[in-house]
């Protein structure tokens, strides 16, 4: 008996004090290290998919970018009646510097930009046959994020910070100052031109060269480079192979891209997000009951037979009028519709006094015909701008159209400090080199 105990006891001692150092080496099982992530071409391509995912998240193009851009412009068109305070501040044009949506849009955009930068930094690892495409898509996505950041957060010549190298070493000094507004826009243009060069004609639901060209048209229009805007839009219309959907309604709430989608963010039941439905829609289709209700004065702007004027429904929750553009919570989010290209070409031709591709009147009536609206007999800049309001409302264009054309937003002049977002408080707290926009400084 005693012997047994002694041997058990001896065994214990051996077990107890023998080394089990290797027991401390435990690797994560559903993530990989940064060094693995940037070591193969396959992973660089995986990171690129990640950039689409990041860019399409709620805080950015999953809907808050578009929602905030329209709320910022709404005066008579529609009303924010939702309970969230952050969008209400944007709608009121009285934004607090700790506004959560303003903060998250900034953070998300730079996360996407950093990932796009990583793809570009390590694109050498990608096999040659895919390399141009991969780089082109990364340029496109980086440009998209920078363009809209700069449109919302710049004021005068104070642009957003510009960083073009991917960061993996977070022990370095990460503070960077703001770039000038034009520096950022120039980078956007050069990225999109690179993307156009590198991307294929067709790339499935990922960005192709016409997505880059379409965005470039939008950028040039914003900057008042009408000739370039016109030519870019014309290129998309002539060569991309996209066509307007037969009906206006068919352009929205699609599970797969419509013929009109030059580029759209993909949403499925399992990934992607569409918060435009959350705030624009009734609860029966997955919304909150209609946080944004459309005002009669906007509805009155449509002609009698205009399908766009009846593309609304009544909220069962608050009895307000809601847009029909967002009634599929798993529907894709169109970023560039071909209709916008017609409107850009029309406006640019009109301003330049040219008729590249088609006359402005033809382009405008093309849009109106599709919606069943009465054709116009002549077209002025005001008509084009009005047509943009009728066609593109609730898709994130409103504030930028006001600002680029110098029109007042309610009582606020287009260059009012209140019409630039503040640099988020958390960003000023974390980065001492940043300067706040005028109108938001603490005294």
């Amino acid at each position, binding site marked *: *008996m005693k012997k047994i*105990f002694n041997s058990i*006891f001896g065994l*214990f*001692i051996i*077990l*107890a004090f023998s080394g*089990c*150092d290797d*027991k*401390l080496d*435990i690797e*994560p*099982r559903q*993530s*990989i290290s*940064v*060094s*693995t*992530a940037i070591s193969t071409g396959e*992973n660089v391509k995986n*990171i690129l*998919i*990640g950039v689409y*995912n990041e860019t399409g998240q709620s805080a950015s193009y999953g809907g808050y970018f578009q929602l905030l851009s329209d709320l910022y412009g709404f005066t008579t068109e529609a009303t924010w009646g939702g*309970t969230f*305070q952050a969008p209400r501040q944007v709608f*009121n044009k009285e934004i*607090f510097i700790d506004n959560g949506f303003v903060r998250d849009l900034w*953070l998300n955009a*730079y*996360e996407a930009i*950093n*990932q796009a930068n990583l793809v570009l930094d390590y694109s050498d690892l990608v096999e040659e046959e895919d390399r141009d495409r991969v780089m082109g898509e990364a340029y496109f996505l980086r440009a998209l994020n920078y363009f809209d950041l700069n449109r919302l957060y710049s004021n005068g010549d104070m642009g957003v*910070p510009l*960083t073009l190298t991917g*960061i*993996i*070493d*977070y*022990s370095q000094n*990460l503070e960077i100052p703001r770039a000038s507004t034009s520096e950022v826009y120039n980078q956007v243009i050069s990225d999109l031109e690179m993307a156009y060069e590198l991307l294929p004609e067709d790339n499935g*639901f990922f960005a192709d060269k016409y997505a880059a060209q379409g965005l470039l048209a939008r950028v040039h229009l914003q900057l008042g480079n009408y000739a370039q805007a016109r030519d870019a839009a014309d290129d998309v219309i002539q060569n991309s192979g996209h066509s307007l959907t037969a009906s206006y309604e068919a352009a929205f709430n699609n599970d797969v891209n419509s013929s009109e989608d030059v580029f759209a963010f993909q949403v*499925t*039941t399992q*990934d*992607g997000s569409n918060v435009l439905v959350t705030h624009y829609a009734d*609860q029966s289709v*997955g919304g909150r009951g209609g946080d944004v209700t459309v005002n009669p004065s906007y509805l009155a702007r449509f002609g009698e037979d205009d399908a766009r004027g009846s593309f609304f429904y009544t909220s*069962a929750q608050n009895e307000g009028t809601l847009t029909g553009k967002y009634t599929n*919570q798993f529907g894709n989010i169109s970023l560039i519709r071909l209709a916008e290209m017609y409107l850009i070409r029309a406006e640019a031709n009109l301003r330049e006094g040219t008729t590249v591709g088609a006359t402005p009147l033809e382009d405008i009536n093309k849009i109106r015909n599709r919606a069943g609206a009465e054709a116009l007999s002549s077209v002025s800049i005001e008509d084009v701008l009005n047509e943009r309001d009728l066609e593109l409302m609730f898709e994130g264009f409103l504030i930028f159209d006001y600002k680029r054309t110098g029109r007042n937003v309610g009582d606020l002049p287009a260059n009012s400090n209140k019409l630039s977002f*503040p640099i988020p*408080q*958390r*960003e000023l*707290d*974390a980065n*001492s080199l940043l300067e706040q926009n005028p109108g938001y400084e*603490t*005294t």
Partner: protein
Amino acid sequence: MKKKLLFVITLFLSLVSFSGFAQNKTVTGTVNDEQAIPLPGVNVIVANTSRGTQTDFDGNYSIDVAEGEVLTFTYVGYTTETVTVGAEDVINITLQEDAAQLDEVVVVGYGTQSKRTLTDNVAKLTSEDIEEVPVPSIQSTIAGKAAGVQISPTNGKVEGGVNIRIRGIASIGAGSEPLYVLDGVPLINNNESNNGSPTNPLLTLSANEIASIDILKDASAAAVYGSRGANGVVIITTKSGANRPATFSLNYSYGVSEPTNLREWLNADEYIELFTEAAINTFGEEEGVPYIEGIFDFLSNDTDWRDREVDTDWQDLALGSGHVQDATLSMSGGNEKTTYFFSGAYNDTEGIVRGNELERINGRVNVTHNFNEKFRAGMNLSFSRTDIDRIANDNAFVTPLQAIAQPAISPAYLENGDPNPNTLYPNFLLQDKHAFYNTVIRRVLGRAFGEYQILDFLKFNSDFGYDLYYQNEDSYTGRLAPFQSTNGEAYASSVNTESYVTSNYFTFSKNFNEIHDLEMVAGMEYNEFNRRFQDVSGIQFPTDDFQTIDSAAEITGGSGSESANSFLSYFARVTYNLYDKYLFKASIRRDGSSRFGEDVRYGTFPAISAGWILSEEEFLSNSEVISFLKLRASYGEAGNANIGDFAALGLFGGISYNQRPGIAPIQAANPLLTWESVKQTDIGLEYGFLDNRISGEIDYYIKESDGLIFQQPLPGTSGQPSITRNIGVLENKGIEFVVNTKNIQTDHFTWNTNFNISKNDNEVKELPNGEDVINGQTILREGEPLSAFYLREYAGVDPENGDALYFVNAEDGDPNETTNDPNAANRVILGQPYAEWIAGLTNTVYYKGIDLGFTFVGEWGASIYNGGGIYQSANADFFDNQSADQLDRWQEPGDITNVPQARLFGGNGTATSSRYLQESDFIRLRNLTLGYTLPEDFTDQIGLEKFRVYFTGINLLTITDYDGYDPESTSDAGQGVGVTFYSAPAVRTMSLGFNINF
């Protein structure tokens, strides 16, 4: 190093010589106190020899003696007994308490120690302190009973988390929860909830099976737990049997609960008045009145609001009365070889928030067997099943208490009795009726242990412990629930986490010449933790009768993940007492953990302490007044390894875009990440006066946390919002004062009082480059308390125009300058979320079979920020129903008030500011128990050992100036420390119960 340790131990063993015995038989027995509670650590010595032993944890001993020899049983705090050995083999002893002495046994980790000779600060609670308190969570029973230990329930939900802070908060990012060790097994204490609000993992324990709770407060005591001891250690010991015939004990109680407090909201009349005014102020009379009347038409859902047809009390619908039912049956007993304890318990708690319920079943068996005089082994095994009906987190529209945002003019139900779907916010009654979220936790917790007495003075212990925490969550949201648009939605999750630990250690314990008392402990421990999680969600159900994933036509998501961590540790401790009055102790632990980077993987945690029992010295030993006086001091280091499993690594995780796989960065690397280290110095004085009628202790401590683990915000432009860093130094220092008095002690009447109070000062000492770290409404700033509130300072209302004003607080500006533009106001530090002073007062009175015990707790110095204030108390900024105090709004020039002019959509005063911050000092009657035990001669007649009936209650009385729901109610939705957000008030419960022993 390991080999050396082994060598030393072996050498030591061989050096110690065996002493010869002249015994011829073995006597065994159990030593109990007068209440039949076994006494561990009693010295059993054969008079006039050097032979002796100690009783084990269950009070059992075994010793070789010859007939005619005399055994003496000595135990500090008790009178000494002597027995002459006769023919019998079993000698059971009952020791009488010696009022002149002061002692109890405390559990210190890998052993026990006498409180009298202890050089650390350990607070001990026994089953008497925690039984019968009608709360489901074990932590809540401790409140007010140990100095410097703050128990903060999150809010009034039954499964809600409980924060325990021992001597302040020593960490920001690595968790401030102490390590819980139950019967030697470090407990899994991870929140595994997936609905956004935490569940308390220790809910699975039943207070009725616990014999004692020892709280190791200073680093000297906790250092033996090394890298996990920084927040203190709570050692829970379960009940065990004793050498006596089986006794049964039955306890049953039933009680009702209600909220501790309700708030005043506008009724229909007041709502219409205030909002009409607000609309006029914003849009003018002409536009405003028709506008707001349209809104009233909508809100009232076609009832006649002009006639005040509907006046709904939404608060009353969300908060109601609940009940608590608790039943336990236990059996314990044994003989000289084997002791056992069996228990079963049932708890059924219906919360005060509608739809919130808990049902728990516990079972436990603890058995110990002495195979021979050298070897004993045993097993503790328990299982529990906890079934919780949960409600949404505080930040969800469908959580019941958000109903207080609904205007009183909105009907709760339609005429046909169904919940009204046309409300301002989703009607939670629809959620209550058409959706559920159920959690079931199954837990198995056990320990197998063996103890081998190699020599009289040397024993070896080997323990293997296992903890399995297995949780399922099931949720279904039916078609008619708010926000439901996919023909039903189901979610199911399953997580199993297991922890196993093996510890092996030697204990050498010997008294030399009654002068030197030496104990040495050395051993190792290996602990591994594995976690596996899966979940799946689906939509599109044929009808609402189908509620499991199987019937989902479309699966929309799923995940499966695994994680693990491990700790490998070596530890040693030496205790040396000279003349029973000069006390020394030193311990060391070396820990390695998989959680830290390769280069910083191991750490060493030493501690040293000393004490001097002055009352044993000649100059005091004859004092009439001073019966006990001990001075002690300790210093120790412990760590806090409570961060994520792979927090040091830079990681990419999988994502998908349009169902194509991809990867994205999820964590910034910090290869230097290591544990936080906490260095604590403690100086204490323990005293007893007048035969210990008055006794207690006074402690002063300084606790410095170095290398605080924190999510430091990064510039967003870097692509990562934050990084986990060891970034600073934090100091907690404070005093603790405990006094116990025996006010009355007669045969039929005793009255004891315990009072404890502690003050903790918390200060951030060092941050990288001295820069502030701002996180939401709180700030880390050198020289300021941890997570101090950093807000705009509300300056009241401009009497001229009703504008809300804020102090500008410019650095060199006029301190009285105000502005109505919140963006122009600088933020300043305006309070802290952690209490500075906490106190507890407990009285126990026995009078001829009547027992009365009550505990008051008090906390001072903390503030609470009401995150819901910008909606609830916003002078009719939006249609949310307003707190009744908003009726004091500014109305005309000259009005002096703190509530700005009501302006619908006006944002007048709704910026985050100190308007919504308030001090939350309170005193409350935490627990009161009044019982009556039937006279023995009566219970004897009906064949019972004991029959007692009692009344018990918690939170029966609260004294506070705080205007919110409750000073102990904060958000469970992760909205920051010290923030409340539609959070349920605490629970007041009154129960009746009885105990029967037979």
